[in-house]
């Protein structure tokens, strides 16, 4: 088992180098019903996010007179993971991830521009092969951009683990199942401010600095790719109106 994580030549189980990220494919505006939607695929992990809003608050008691509220729901498809998972209405882990994503975007979205409104973010994980939370955050960023909701910056997330003193970035399911630490970071790349941080299992203090630096670099790599996708989509969308935007 341990030899599969990192070979003596320095290659991971899927042939990547420690700092190499998985192939990222993304698409904006995949669904017609929601105001904004996006699919992000990192390796075999594929997440679809829909954004509805800003619209009137459904529950008047939760209405905030100064800013918009965000409601987030996270779901893993039954066929998404290796073993079939039966759909549960209130799965504790799913609720927790939903709240985490909500908190992440409360920091990034300019909520004060839409008082008394509600923004709904719905995350559906279609395939899970590790790093579902991170891919969900990346896809949500794109979906919010697709919906035209103003944000302070991109929010990019990346997960890492430490194995034999090497930091492995953008971990897949096999690497997540190993007994190493699971370090997830969501960052706003321009200011390098950390919006979300989660650590599972044990991480030695000596490794902390290195892990944080490399994960932030991982997030910056993602931001470059997401930005490229947004610009491509903008040019395409503007072409429908015969506009050539300068990107």
């Amino acid at each position: 088992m341990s030899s599969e994580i990192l070979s003596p030549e320095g290659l991971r189980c899927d042939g990547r180098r420690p700092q190499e990220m998985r192939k990222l494919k993304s698409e904006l505006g995949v669904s017609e019903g929601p105001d904004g939607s996006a699919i992000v695929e990192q390796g075999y992990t594929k997440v679809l996010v829909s954004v509805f809003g800003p619209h009137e608050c459904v529950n008047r008691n939760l209405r905030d007179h100064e800013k918009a509220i965000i409601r987030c729901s996270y779901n893993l498809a039954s066929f998404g993971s290796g073993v079939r998972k039966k759909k549960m209405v209130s799965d504790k882990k799913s609720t927790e991830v939903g709240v985490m994503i909500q908190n992440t975007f409360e920091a990034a979205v300019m909520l004060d521009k839409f008082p008394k409104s509600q923004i709904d973010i719905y995350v559906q994980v279609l395939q899970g092969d590790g790093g579902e939370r991170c891919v969900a955050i990346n896809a949500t960023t794109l979906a919010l951009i697709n919906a035209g909701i103003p944000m302070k910056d991109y929010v990019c997330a990346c997960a890492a683990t430490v194995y034999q003193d090497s930091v492995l970035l953008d971990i897949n399911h096999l690497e997540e199942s190993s007994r190493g630490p699971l370090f997830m970071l969501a960052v706003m790349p321009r200011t390098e401010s950390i919006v979300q941080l989660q650590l599972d299992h044990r991480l030695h203090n000596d490794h902390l600095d290195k892990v944080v630096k490399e994960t932030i670099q991982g997030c910056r790599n993602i931001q470059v790719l997401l930005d490229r996708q947004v610009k491509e989509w903008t040019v395409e969308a503007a072409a429908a109106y015969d506009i050539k935007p300068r990107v």
Partner: protein
Amino acid sequence: TFQHYFKRINLRRNDLRRSGLTMVTQLSNAEVQFIIDGVEQDFRSDGRAAEDYRQIELETRVLPNTNGSARCKLGKSEVLVGVKAEVVDVDVHAPHIGKLMITADLSAVASPKFVGKGSEALENDITNVLSFLYNSTETVPLKDLCIVKGESCWLLNIDVLFVQCGGNLFDVASIALKAALYSTTLPTVRVSGEGIEMEMEVSDDPYHVWKLDVSSCPICVTLHQIGSSFAVDLSEEEVACSEGYLHVGVMPDGEVSSMEKAGAGNIDPTTLLEMVEVGVRVGEEIHRQLNKQLDAERSLAKL
């Protein structure tokens, strides 16, 4: 009279909206009249005839974690079907056949209405219709799914995930289901020994697999009664004007495998026979096109 009809339609529209069958609520009486006239004159709002389906997009083997999968888009409705197989104990009452379990899941990404328990009613509805469709042993050859008679068999967990909802959910689900089963590959199982010493070995060689026979798998054709006429593959606006609908399960050879009337509204017996006739005709054509495209896709993959 028209006034009476509009009043009935308006009262029904809230029920339809609450059930999730259609999201459209604001239709003026003039729009309703326009849609009804269109269907009766065989020329609908989008130019289709009453028997025409919207464009169908189909792709199989889209989910790597599954034994078989398909993605189907019909108009604005999009569905993902994944088939995952597992080895289980046989049912005491049917020890020589395998099992099928179909579950529908309406994702919240399709509509805010489907968050939490909001989707339960419509999900149960779709699950029941699809399960009913496949209930007979003559649809999927369940005998092929038996591994050891009286002991073990394959259970196919079929999960239907709706990613976008734009009308006619039952039909798109049944088409995607058939395509997913067509693409399903199951590993060969080697059984050795007898009784207590029996050993089952599931092969993990990716080329040592066998495919399901889907030549008897039905699809569902839903026909809605609109005004004094009926139509297939309704968009959401059209559903909001309809009264009563019929699900017809059509086999590839044109036989009717199941039928279910749903929704509020009466259907005339003569209209019912006409609807079934049209349903069978449309269903056969869909099967023909579906088989043609699935075979073409399989030949591309050279499997």
